[in-house]
């Protein structure tokens, strides 16, 4: 029977099917961080059970970590306590741990691929919804809750009903200034934040085939923002080239054998999806969000839609615009902004810093803007320095911070004050996401760069 890429990977990991119930689903790789794992370890202790396969779990500290002075003790006592709990649990159960200050430390969804832990055909979970990122490699990867973290630690399995399948095809030529983030925000605006719920997505078409691994990760990362559990892209030569030689990637004969297998991981020509969406690449322009969920995005040159043009309740829509301090029919270009955040598991990779630097090169940061530039990992940080990007940023008046999740969810000190506008390359513009009362405008790295140097929302295409 013809199978999709998703079917092939899913079906090969089902330990058993429960009648009128979920599948017992085997997990190859498990990432943990300090926020969603402590209670899972408590559960293990209460039950008196061990971690079944400690070598399949990888711990890194990211959500809570400060992005300056990482060599000093963490000031926030609660954060310090969580970081210590992660370290203690990892030590007790024999799990590899890349804590604060470790050269391999960084955002879990950046360091996993960077070290070849993420592989095609693998099943990957983490107590974090942006685990969907790893689908860029042709893995099935999705976020889980803490009860499930405990399940994976103790049995390497979770219990999941198999999701339905959706394929999103984007074909044609992307316009200049339009990148992976814009493609993703455009898709989410089409589907809304719930349009993908119940589905696992495969991204297909020449736009994704021509994308770098960093770009594919940005797209797959945002799958959850349309409600989908995850998204994946068939592995190809771009995938193999990225992975070859990385720390945990197979070596020698095992590599050759693995690539042979990975080449079979594609959707059969006559396989059927439960839903399919076709998008013309040329229709996408640089995107910006104007509301309080990632589905509320428009092209930068557009006006904010009126309530009668959008799906869903008028009351919720008006509440959202009121929170943002925006009005129906407002023009986005020219709106003043206060903060710029470049970073996160969505856009904290080297390519994102290259794109940002391309725009700010030879320009200066606007005086009214506070900018937080946060690499996704120490590896990214090192590359920024090696490639001379740091010099460009410094010359333009920017400061590079240390790796972590930072202002994406504002668990550390990087909080946008109430009422202030932040152009952010992260993934969520929910109320208060970047600090109580903060107002987030999601965008690509070049849109963020254009805002950072002009102090207002600017069409980045004007700055090339």
């Amino acid at each position, binding site marked *: 029977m013809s199978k999709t890429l998703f079917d092939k990977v899913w079906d090969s990991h089902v330990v058993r099917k429960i009648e009128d119930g979920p599948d017992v689903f085997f997990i190859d790789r498990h990432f943990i961080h300090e926020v969603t794992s402590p209670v899972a370890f408590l559960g293990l202790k209460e039950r008196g059970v061990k971690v079944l396969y400690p070598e399949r779990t990888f711990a890194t500290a990211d959500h809570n970590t400060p992005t300056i002075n990482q060599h000093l003790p963490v000031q926030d006592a609660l954060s310090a306590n969580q970081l210590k709990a992660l370290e203690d649990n990892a030590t007790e159960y024999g799990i590899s741990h890349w804590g604060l200050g470790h050269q391999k430390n960084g955002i879990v969804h950046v360091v996993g691929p960077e070290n070849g832990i993420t592989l095609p055909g693998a099943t990957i979970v983490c107590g974090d919804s942006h685990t969907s990122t790893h689908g860029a490699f042709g893995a099935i990867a999705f976020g889980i809750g803490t009860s499930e973290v405990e*399940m994976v630690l103790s049995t390497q399995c979770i219990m999941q009903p198999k999701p339905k399948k959706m394929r999103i095809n984007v074909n044609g030529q992307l316009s200049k200034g339009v990148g992976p983030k814009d493609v993703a925000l455009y898709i989410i605006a089409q589907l809304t934040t719930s349009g993908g719920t119940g589905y696992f997505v495969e991204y297909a078409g020449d736009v994704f085939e021509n994308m770098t691994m960093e770009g594919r990760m940005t797209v797959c990362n945002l799958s959850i923002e349309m409600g989908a559990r995850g998204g994946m892209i068939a592995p190809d030569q771009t995938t193999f080239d990225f992975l070859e030689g990385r720390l945990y990637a197979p070596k020698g004969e095992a590599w050759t054998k693995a690539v042979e297998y990975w080449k079979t991981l594609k959707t059969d020509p006559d396989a059927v999806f439960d839903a399919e969406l076709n998008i013309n690449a040329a229709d996408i322009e640089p995107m910006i969000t104007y509301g309080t969920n990632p589905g509320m995005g428009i092209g930068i040159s557009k006006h904010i839609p009126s309530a009668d043009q959008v799906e869903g309740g008028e009351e919720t829509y008006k509440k959202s615009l009121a929170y943002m301090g925006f009005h129906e029919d407002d023009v986005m270009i020219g709106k003043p902004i206060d903060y710029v955040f470049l970073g996160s598991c969505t856009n904290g990779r080297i390519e994102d810093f290259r794109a940002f630097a391309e725009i700010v090169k030879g320009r200066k940061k606007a005086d009214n803007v506070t900018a937080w530039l946060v690499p996704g990992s120490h590896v990214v940080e090192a590359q920024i320095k090696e490639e001379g990007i740091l010099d460009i940023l410094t010359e333009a008046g920017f400061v590079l911070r240390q790796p972590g999740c930072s202002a994406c969810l504002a668990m550390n000190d990087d909080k946008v004050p109430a009422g202030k506008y932040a152009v952010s390359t992260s993934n969520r513009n929910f109320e208060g996401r970047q600090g109580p009362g903060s107002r987030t405008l999601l965008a690509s790295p070049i849109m963020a760069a254009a805002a950072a140097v002009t102090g207002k929302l600017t069409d980045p295409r004007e700055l090339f």
Partner: protein
Amino acid sequence: MAYDKFNILTSSAVPLPIENVDTDQIIPARFLKATKREGFGDNLFRDWRYNGDDTPKADFVLNNPTYSGKILVGGKNFGSGSSREHAAWAVYDYGFRAVVSSFFADIFKGNCLNIGVLPVQVSPEFAETIFKAIEADPKTELEINLPNQTITLLATGQQESFAINGYKKNNMINGFDDIDYLQNIKGDIQAFADKLPY
């Protein structure tokens, strides 16, 4: 962690007719720093419920004594966003045992089922009927019958059935969890793992 068994729940309900309620609203990230599962109910809907100076916002439904009960009725696409199970814990710890909506986000729904909060998905029309009934009489009672998979407005008898898979239903009625199940088939799991490429 053990949770209350769920059979038939009869209670008044608290209405929250807002769409796309995300888990950052249910529990903001800055309250996720605990290493134990304690006190999350205090911060349920923190920023909608309290001002910056921690005084209650009078216009938020949880601060309105007119509404109470063990059932929360939310707008469409309830629980979107972050996978934080803390959101489900906050709902449970506050005292809710069921959430009713015309549409749930996937991860939140799964988290609820794992910790003893029953997500009851109804048609948009029935959700509207419930909101109107509560508006007319805040003390009106709903009956959620898990064995029969029905939700009923007791005053009028209006009823709808809801879906839940047999395995999860049995778990909730008996207070079982998935880990008990998985522990019992560990041998099968290990045999399976031995055959995988990585």
